[in-house]
């Protein structure tokens, strides 16, 4: 027992188990959030039926997908057809291994963290191609190839912008990146006299393309090819692709937050007098407001079990809010709170953009990537480098 508790693997294993167990649920709720936010933008309500305000919808979706018939096209390459979504999900989830959720909660802190994540997301493209190819359908393959070309093209500006940030942080380790932002007292996006805003914006745009999200979702949404590489997938295999997609959205948002927006740090991490309002008051108020909203919702729903669920949610929120008042607990969870808050805000922006913009045509998409983003990110790299050289 002692051995287990003292083993250096304990922490990572528990963290891994937690992530792998919880993340599908989280992905499901991100889907629900997307549906509700889109509905809000589109003047409608979104899922309302399953659970209070549609809150149990992800469970219903999961059950539905699990119960569906497993269809494999007869001419499909069976093993690769099976393996492609597995590969996608695997690479997406593996990136969580180095994601710095907080200074206390992470799986591992390798000193090449960011490189590892970039490698994993590049590998994820393979899952797409194999999926389209193994479906043995001309149009699935075309959609997969288009999608793969898009992803590969936009990895270049992604890489350039991260390298630009790395010039400031001088370390590849994810925790190290956050730490350097703490040391410098400013998030990287706003540092270097604001010149780093350009790489930050380029990274965000490339992030939309990397995750096949609007306005770059032509390969999967509009084409006459129906749904691109995952046309032939149904049931749980489709659920795996779906999971992989939302996991990669979370990963990309996590990288953006970590590299450019301070990770698990609060805004103005070094200014001491802001500690109390930002680290204590803000989370408490936020969670109290959410809890209050849940309580209000509890009064409005009609069924008993719905009221129960909303009530439980409200109580949980109040409890967590109370936890922030205790300094010892606050220290433990504040990093995670800020990380989650920033990632969820960025995910909201992703959904917002999806609901607002039309789609790029494929040639325009490639044009934006090659003709605009790559030169701009290269230029930003050079400019930031020069400025850093002369100011440090």
């Amino acid at each position, binding site marked *: 027992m002692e051995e287990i508790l003292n083993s250096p693997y304990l922490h990572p294993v528990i963290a891994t188990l937690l992530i792998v167990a919880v993340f599908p649920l989280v992905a499901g709720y991100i889907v629900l959030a997307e549906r509700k936010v*889109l509905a809000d*933008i*589109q*003047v*409608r309500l979104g899922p309302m039926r399953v659970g209070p305000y549609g809150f149990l919808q992800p469970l219903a979706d999961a059950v539905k997908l699990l119960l569906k018939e497993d269809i494999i096209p007869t001419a499909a390459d069976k093993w690769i057809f099976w393996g492609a979504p597995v590969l996608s999900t695997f690479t997406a989830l593996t990136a969580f291994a180095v994601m710095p959720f907080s200074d206390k909660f992470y799986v591992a802190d390798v000193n090449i963290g960011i490189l590892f994540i970039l490698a994993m997301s590049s590998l994820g493209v393979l899952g797409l191609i194999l999926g389209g190819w193994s479906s043995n359908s001309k149009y699935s393959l075309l959609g997969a190839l288009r999608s793969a070309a898009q992803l590969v093209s936009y990895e270049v500006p992604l890489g350039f912008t991260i390298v630009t940030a790395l010039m400031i942080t001088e370390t590849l380790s994810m925790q190290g990146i956050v730490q350097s932002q703490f040391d410098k007292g400013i998030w990287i996006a706003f540092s270097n006299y604001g010149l780093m805003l350009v790489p930050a914006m380029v990274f965000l745009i490339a992030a939309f393309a990397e995750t096949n999200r*609007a*306005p770059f*979702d*032509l390969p999967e*949404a*509009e*084409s*006459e090819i129906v749904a691109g590489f995952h046309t032939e997938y149904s049931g749980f295999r489709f659920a795996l692709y779906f999971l992989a997609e939302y996991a990669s959205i979370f990963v990309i948002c996590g990288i953006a937050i970590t590299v450019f927006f301070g990770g698990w740090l609060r805004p103005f991490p070094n200014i001491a007098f802001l500690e109390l309002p930002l680290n204590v008051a803000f989370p408490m108020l936020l969670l109290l407001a959410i809890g209050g909203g849940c309580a209000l919702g509890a009064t409005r729903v009609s069924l008993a079990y719905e009221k129960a669920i909303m009530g439980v949610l409200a109580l949980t929120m109040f409890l967590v809010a109370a936890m922030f008042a205790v300094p010892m607990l606050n220290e433990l969870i504040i990093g995670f709170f800020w990380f989650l808050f920033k990632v969820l805000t960025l995910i909201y922006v992703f959904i917002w953009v*999806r*609901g*607002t*913009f*039309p*789609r*790029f*045509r*494929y*040639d*325009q998409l490639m044009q934006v990537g090659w003709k605009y983003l790559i030169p701009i990110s290269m230029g930003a790299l050079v400019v930031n480098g020069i400025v850093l050289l002369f100011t440090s």
Partner: protein
Amino acid sequence: MATQSTFLDTNELVLNMGPQHPSTHGVLRVILRLDGEKVLGTECVIGYLHRGVEKIAENRTYQQFAPYVDRMDYVAAVSNGLGYCMAVEALGGVEIPERAQCVRVILTELNRIASHLLWLGTHALDIGAMTPVFYCFREREEVLKIFEKYCGARLTTHSFRIGGLQYETYDTFEKDCHTFCDWFEKKVDEYEELLTTNRIWVGRTKGVGILNAEACKAYGVTGPVLRAAGVEWDLRKAQPYCGYEKYDFDIPTCQNGDTYDRYIVRMQEFRQSVRIIRQAVDSLPEGPIKGKVSKVYKPPIGEAYVSIEAPKGELGYYVVSDGSTQPYRLRVRPPSLVNLQALDEMCRGALVADVVAIIGTIDIVLGEVDR
């Protein structure tokens, strides 16, 4: 057309956008010949919604046939009814009282707004903006409410009768129209804000599906497509009917004849329609709503071609009467069919993703194409 493709052989690919299609505007089948992403030619197969309306017309009395015309362009049913009633009235030389004409104008312009709203929503959806469709349908709902209060039906309204109107306007009709106009103008501003200067929207629509004025006239294309090509021609101004000469409105035109210009023209038409409605409502005269028409309507032997400016173009009715109570021949000149013929020309050199945008920009309704 289909070719054997050997390894790395770049022969043309034939792609079928079948009658069931996510972005189709009805049951339209388009056979595309592609060279990679570029469209070499298109061929439309229509007739999936052919119901033999012209044959039915020969077997119904004039009044009996009136509800059938709504079902052709079912999105903008009021215009169909207007054209038909006007054609039959012209045959019989019936005078329409002023009040009826005014109300006809109001309802027709409301119907134009409703039709363009549906066009905007579906067109934006085809291009990928998934939000405007909900806003447009919310606005369209208001128009349909007015229709429902007036004649009991939302979509296929049968709002007009030969000789004028059947129903007197309801109590709050003028107020409703004014409220709608005021509210709607702000919404048009919202749409413009969302789409008109949006770089992605402009990139998807500018230079796409160009049909210049020469080609428009050659293909007989009318309506917003013609006006976007620079020809300032609107039947409401060129050959005014139903009292349109009394109202002050402009004809929006653009120069390039591409999808973006057609979008601009239709957005401007929203505003012009609102202008007309306001003027008509303010000047609504008192009086009878129906002219002198015998119960058994028998126009004298003759023929007449009457056309109106429907939301989609020139909608014409050619009616031949043999003096009996049933038309001898009723021909509907559908703007959607004639406009659709220009699809091939517009898609030359476009990319596959543009074909959907171009079909959307022509604004067809298959009920009218096929009748």
